[in-house]
């Protein structure tokens, strides 16, 4: 344990401390260590992993609903597209930019951007539909320079570059772990067909033979979204590796 004592100062020391405070101010008024980023004329460079507005790629989406499930603020809700599948929409009036949705998206359909400075005049506009999330949006920018923080072993410096920073980053897709749905206990299937109804890729099919309902999972079509596993009322489906 380290004891921190409260100092005692005599008059002479006090004068010295006054002088030191005034001296510091004088030095700073001549050689200031200014660290100001003059937004909106300049823009601070954000790292590539910055959590900003979210873009969406339709082709990679398997409609697994995980983004909607994991969203702590319930900002992501899936919306039915004309092709009958569900794609995410984001309500930026609720979004907290935790990017749990991006981290849950196994296909890599959701991507981050570095957009974070937006003002809406109306709260209704803040709901961003799937259709609007595909192409990079345009924001009003007044910056001509970009600023980067450089920290050497002594101090922080601002490096100003005369370039307009791009706000869209190339993202490497996440690791692929192909999974498929599998029934582990066929005997217990009650034939409610919930799995078939919920499956968005059409991998689960049912056929009635001799009055007995037979369910089949097409492993080629199965995207491993896990919805059937979650919905199965008997809990007899599992996700396994392909």
């Amino acid at each position, binding site marked *: 344990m380290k004891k921190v004592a409260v100092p005692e100062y005599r008059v002479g020391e006090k004068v010295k401390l006054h002088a030191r405070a005034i001296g510091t101010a004088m030095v700073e008024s001549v050689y200031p*260590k200014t*660290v100001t980023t003059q937004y909106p004329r300049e823009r601070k460079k954000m790292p590539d992993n910055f959590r900003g507005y979210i873009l969406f790629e339709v082709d990679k989406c398997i409609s697994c609903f995980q983004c909607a499930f994991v969203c702590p603020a319930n900002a992501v809700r899936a919306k039915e597209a004309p092709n009958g599948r569900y794609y995410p929409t984001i309500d930026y009036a609720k979004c907290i930019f935790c990017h749990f949705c991006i981290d849950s998206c196994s296909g890599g359909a959701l991507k981050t951007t570095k957009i974070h400075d937006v003002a809406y005049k109306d709260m209704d506009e803040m709901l961003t539909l799937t259709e609007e999330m595909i192409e990079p949006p345009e924001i009003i920018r007044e910056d001509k320079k970009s600023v980067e923080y450089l920290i050497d072993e002594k101090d922080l410096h601002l490096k100003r570059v005369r370039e307009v920073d791009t706000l869209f980053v190339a993202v490497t897709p996440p690791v692929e772990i192909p999974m498929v749905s599998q029934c582990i206990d066929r005997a217990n299937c009650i034939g409610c067909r919930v799995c078939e109804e919920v499956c968005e890729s059409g991998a689960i099919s049912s056929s009635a033979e001799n009055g007995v309902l037979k369910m089949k999972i097409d492993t080629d079509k199965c995207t491993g979204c896990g919805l059937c596993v979650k919905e199965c009322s008997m809990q007899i489906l599992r996700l396994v590796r392909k």
Partner: protein
Amino acid sequence: MIDINSIISEMTTEGSQVIIPLIQQMLGLLPDIPMIKLMVSFILWKPIFAALICPGFSTLGILLLFFPWIERKLCARIQWRVGPREVVRWLGGIIQLLADTLKFIFQEVIIHKDAHKFYFLQFPLLTFIPALLPILFVNIASADAEYPLVAIQSPYAIQIMLALICLFPVFILGMGWASNSRYAFIGTVREAFMYFAYEVPFIIAVLAMIILFGTSGSVAITEWQSTWWRWGIICNPFAALAFFIGSAMATSRLPFEIPEADQEVAFGPFVEYSGIGFGLVYIVCYEKMYVLSALMTMLFLGGGNGPYIAPLGDLSGAVWFLLKTIIVMTTLAILRPIYPRYRLDQGLGMGWSAILFLALIALVLSIIMRSVGMVL
């Protein structure tokens, strides 16, 4: 009945016109119309010039428009940031105060239900009387000049200025009282206490200088300090220090920003003022600072004394005077980024112990110097 002719003859007597070689030729180009000539010589008539142009109304106005900007920029620089910048960027935001003023002027003025309406409205305006009148007694001419440049010459100039300055807190008390709010109440009481704290040492410090100079006329004081080693600050540094701390207290600068402490009592007496009402009290604080700085320049920094600048003629002294005043004002302003705020009892304690002691030393020093005749 005003005798126009006698005024005109007084205007045109020797030495009663401000002579500035730089613009004298331009004046010659003016059309030869008696009325315009009369107007020009009226404005250049020294008492009027002092009251209206320098150090009076115009100088004050321009200074008030730019000084808060200087203060904010300086603060910002010390605080590692930029300060007001974007309004008319190529001027570096120098007209920030103009924007603020326009906003104040066109803003709604709210008189809340509990306020004493009559006093609430008139006190911000009335404060200008003690803040403006002392300027009339300021002499900005240098000692070399044959004729002084001052609006009202009086052998009791310093005393009158002091009396007017000491009237100032009364109006702030009035504002606080008329606001009828708890914060305003606390702030007003604090203002009253601070008034007690600084007034005695402040007056003693000035008294010390009057004793030292042996006169209290603004012209004579400037003449007395004709060379730099006879400046008040060098002859009696104790008085200068006491006066400076006293003015920091009087203008509520940090570390004595006790009545207005915005984190504690939310601008104290001014908490309920909005729009142009607040604009006036905001400006009047700087005005008080200007008056006190001018007084400091006169008493301690040799007034308008300085090397003569030929093209400026009579204005040469004015330039030096203003320069010194601005330096004093900046020094007062720079206290803001350096110091936190003292507590009320500490401020009061300092006023009645350390500063009073300092002022008394100054007084004794002056008396000794005067009686020994060391410098005379």
